[in-house]
């Protein structure tokens, strides 16, 4: 009797499972992002599993490729119409390119129509908008800071520079003491674009710069502000003065970072999301480290309070067959609970309200977020904010500047020429 009841129960349960499987047609969402590193997947893998457990009708097919190849991968997928349902996007022009061409789903109503909007500061949503509509939600917010080795600074009697002149003077002092001042790897020249972008923001009036990046400036003034050539000249001067390590064009950013972590360089321009790379047992960790935003340039026509950085986020494919499920997944990822885990596990910072607390983030990360809040605004990553073709010209030019084989004037002339061609094509 007992046995048969147990058997009945088992059969019943099995039938119920079988039934449930048949009743909910299972939906598979493809999900592509750019954090394949083990320390980052350590967040994403359990998060996906947790979501699947809570939503048995949805399966997530996750794939991740690193930062640099991601730029190609997403375009290949777009070109072959295999767009993932949910995909990573930088904010700014990189994302606008998808919005403008109808490849990203308009999620204005989903976010602003309900309580989802309360999850984010409005400033973090702004860079995902195109023509007033929202096309993405931010997962983290990132900004660029100059990290410095406290011991090397103290040994050479250097304080945190308050002005750009102080900063350059600090470089000279370090160099004279036989220390390579700044670790810099520009083999992939996005690294230079962060310096140039920051200098542009300091030297070119904000509205002019944004109109140029968006190609909405009149054709006769597009990229003609003298601040742009000044920015390139200042960047070149850093190199010519010996502020950067030797052979920056042949080093990757991560190799240069290795040198900085080993205590061989006094400074490095790094992202907030990289703060977690400074481990306690590295030489830098032992020497102690701090950071400062690149200081303002006296007489610069730009906004000295701007910080280079941007929120990164996710978009939904306009062609997805399961928009509701995709939105459910993004709501899950951007919930305060998930965002707290994300911060704790990856060491990155999240743009979700209330996600960064002293419990889950390092002292420096919290300070970094405070600096972002204190900034007058974010100047988005140059290489994802300018149109792609003009960016390529500027980026190749940055390598030429480091080699001394081209001049700021000639490079800006080529950038302008390229930007004019793209502007004409877009019909702005």
């Amino acid at each position, binding site marked *: 009797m007992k046995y048969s009841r147990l058997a009945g129960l088992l059969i019943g349960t099995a039938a119920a499972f079988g039934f449930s499987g048949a009743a909910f047609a299972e939906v598979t969402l493809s999900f592509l992002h750019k954090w394949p590193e083990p320390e980052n997947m350590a967040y994403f893998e359990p998060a996906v599993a947790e979501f699947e457990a809570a939503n048995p009708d949805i399966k997530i097919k996750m794939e991740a490729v690193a930062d640099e190849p991601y730029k190609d991968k997403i*375009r290949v997928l*777009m070109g072959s119409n295999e767009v993932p349902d949910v995909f990573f996007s930088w904010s700014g022009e990189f994302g606008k390119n*998808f919005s*403008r061409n109808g490849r990203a789903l308009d999620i204005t109503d989903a976010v602003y129509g309900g309580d989802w909007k309360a999850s984010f500061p409005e400033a973090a949503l702004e860079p995902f908008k195109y023509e007033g509509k929202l096309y993405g939600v931010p997962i983290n917010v990132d900004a660029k800071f100059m990290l410095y080795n406290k011991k090397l600074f103290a040994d050479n009697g250097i304080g945190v520079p308050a002005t750009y002149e102080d900063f350059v003077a600090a470089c000279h002092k370090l160099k004279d003491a036989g220390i390579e001042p700044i670790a810099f790897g520009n*083999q992939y020249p996005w690294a230079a674009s962060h310096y140039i972008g920051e200098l542009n923001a300091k030297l070119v009036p904000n509205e002019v710069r944004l109109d140029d990046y968006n190609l909405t400036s009149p054709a006769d003034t597009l990229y003609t502000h003298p601040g742009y050539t000044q920015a390139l000249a200042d960047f070149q001067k850093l190199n010519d003065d010996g502020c950067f390590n030797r052979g920056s*064009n042949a080093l990757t950013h991560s190799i240069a970072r290795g040198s900085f972590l080993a205590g061989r360089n006094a400074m490095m321009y790094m992202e907030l999301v990289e703060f977690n790379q400074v481990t306690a047992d590295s030489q830098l960790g032992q020497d102690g480290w701090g950071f400062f935003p690149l200081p303002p340039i006296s007489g610069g026509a730009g906004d000295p309070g701007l910080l280079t950085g941007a929120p990164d986020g996710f978009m939904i494919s306009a062609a997805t067959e399961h928009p509701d499920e995709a939105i459910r997944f993004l709501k899950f990822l951007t919930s305060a609970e998930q965002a707290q885990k994300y911060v704790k596990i990856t060491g990155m910072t999240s743009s979700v309200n209330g996600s960064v607390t002293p419990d889950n983030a390092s002292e420096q990360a919290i300070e970094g977020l405070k600096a972002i809040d204190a900034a007058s605004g974010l100047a988005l990553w140059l290489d994802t904010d300018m149109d792609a073709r003009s960016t*390529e010209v500027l980026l190749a030019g940055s390598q030429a500047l*480091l080699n001394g084989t081209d001049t700021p004037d000639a490079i800006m002339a080529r950038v302008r020429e390229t930007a004019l061609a793209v502007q004409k094509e877009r019909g702005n």
Partner: protein
Amino acid sequence: MKASLLSRYAPYLFLFPSLLLLVAFVYAPALENMVYSLFSWSSVRTEQRFVGLDNYRELFANPVFWRALVNNVLYAVISIMFQVIVALVIAAVLVGGIIGPRQRTLFRTAFFLPSILPVTVVGLLWQLIYQPTIGLIDQVLYSTGLQGLSHVWLGEEATVMISVIMVSQWQWTGYMIVLFMVSIQAIPDDLYEALKMEGANRIQQFFHITVPGVRESTLILAIITIFGAFKVFDIVWVMTAGGPNNASEVLGTHMYRSAFRNDVSGYAAAVATVIFLITLAIGAVQIRLQRQD
């Protein structure tokens, strides 16, 4: 009657499947690519605008394209020097009985080994060797007092292309040596014996028997080498991604960058068509030369 009909058409029946695959995956896409090159479009923006030959005009006016083409030619010339001429000489030395059979096996294996490594591994390995200051080459130069010769090999526009090309030679010359050894061994020994009796030295033997004896394989290997030089992409992309300042751009990377970075797929299709026409011309020369034999 029936049997003869079958035997007449049977060969075509056997050829049909492979022909079908070739048409579907080689000829049709190549043709389609030429059509694409007449449009302005990108992978993100799906609608296509007919622009005629504008993409080609832009291409021929772009200094980066010419730089890439020159780099491919340089790649081909240096590859021929190493992978055909040097490889043939080394193969002749190894086969020629100057060294013993055990040493021959040792050298053959040592030379061949790099060619079994994946290109990505080779690229990353050499990236480290070329690294400024901490790289093996720089360390050797510094420790021998030759620091004056030190360069940022992959970071300077003047040295980057030759540095990448030499990695290809390091990887593939050994492979070519083995292929040449096989064809030299196929030359009948009595030819060498006859010439030896006439009093010819090794150099004379090389020029009068070895070189003519491997003429056919030399031709084919040279063509393969040139093809490779014009299609090269992976080693350049891994080591330099075409930089710095486009100095190591080849047609393959220029095409890829145009399509997947700059969002100008029509232009990229035009680059692809140019690569296709160049390799087609080389193929035609090969067929022509083979017919003359």
